């Protein structure tokens, strides 16, 4: 069975989520309420610049929201997944599942 017969083309996956760093960010944020920049950086083993770029792309698409504040005079940046982002992630997972099921005889 091909993808088309399974009713889904792999290339139709959401481009915003479909990159390993962004997938990692989304996977963390669907589990916890909020994550700080440093936490995401350590968990995903990324540089500041690289992580910042991917976070901005997710933020621009409305998948995550950011809140900046100061705690004890230190800047604190918190990221949270939005309803739109959670929905997009669920659709993405469904599409992956559908694609994998297509491999079964």
């Amino acid at each position, binding site marked *: 069975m091909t*993808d088309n017969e399974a009713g889904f*083309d792999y290339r139709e996956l959401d481009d915003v989520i479909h990159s390993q760093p962004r997938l990692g960010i989304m996977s963390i944020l669907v589990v916890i309420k909020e994550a*700080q920049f440093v*936490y995401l950086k350590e968990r995903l083993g990324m540089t500041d610049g690289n992580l910042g770029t991917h976070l901005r792309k997710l933020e621009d698409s409305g998948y995550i929201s950011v809140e900046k504040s100061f705690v004890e005079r230190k800047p*604190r940046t918190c990221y949270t997944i939005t309803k739109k982002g959670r929905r997009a*992630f669920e659709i993405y997972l*469904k599409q992956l599942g559908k694609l994998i099921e297509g491999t079964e005889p």
Partner: protein
Amino acid sequence: MKPENQESAGSPSQEESIIDQQQAAQDLHYIRQVIEQTRWMTMLSKSIFFIWGIVIWLLVFLTYAFHLELVGLSSPTPPAYINWLEWAILTFAFVYTVVHLMRIRRHRVQDGGQAIRADNRILGFVWIGFTVNALLLTYFGPLILGFLNVTGIHSGMRFVGLSASLAYALFVTSGLNELRVLKWVAMVCWLGAALLLFTPEEWVLFIFGLFVGTGFLVTGMVLHHQSKVSHDG
């Protein structure tokens, strides 16, 4: 993963489909790993390990303070409220654990794929198995032996079984969630189980608390430190 600028063009060939399906399986595996690690590191880890570490030490303390006959030493009858206190502590820890596990389930992505559900099912069975072992070794076993008037069995053997069961559950959990620290706690529990074989009966509970209770507390502290990273940014 798909390259950033790849555009969709036409229908995929069968060869492309097979590659895509393999890629999809890898993607799903990656998502599963990140979700499982996050869930265990943030929600379960911080509190449940602390709670059970403290509970084990409290119960060891209460036993040595009020139930010396249980460890082979003579003692006056403990006040009635001590028994209630011990049950209240155990009930609190049990309810706390169940509530936390339910919270984790609620946060779970509903369509997280078969791999995530399979891992959760395995973990569920492993920990249910441990709970059955624990109840058999600490409550029903002694109850049945008492009912049958069976004596002369080294009570330390129960705690050897309990430590070894706990070590096994932690070891499997460590493998499924790739949390290295749990593997070390499992080793400590196994070491404790081995030492208990040679421990005089009156010191069995103390050694059990030392290895298992402290093992839980140390795990809680290590994982707390890991998750604290998110508050220092």
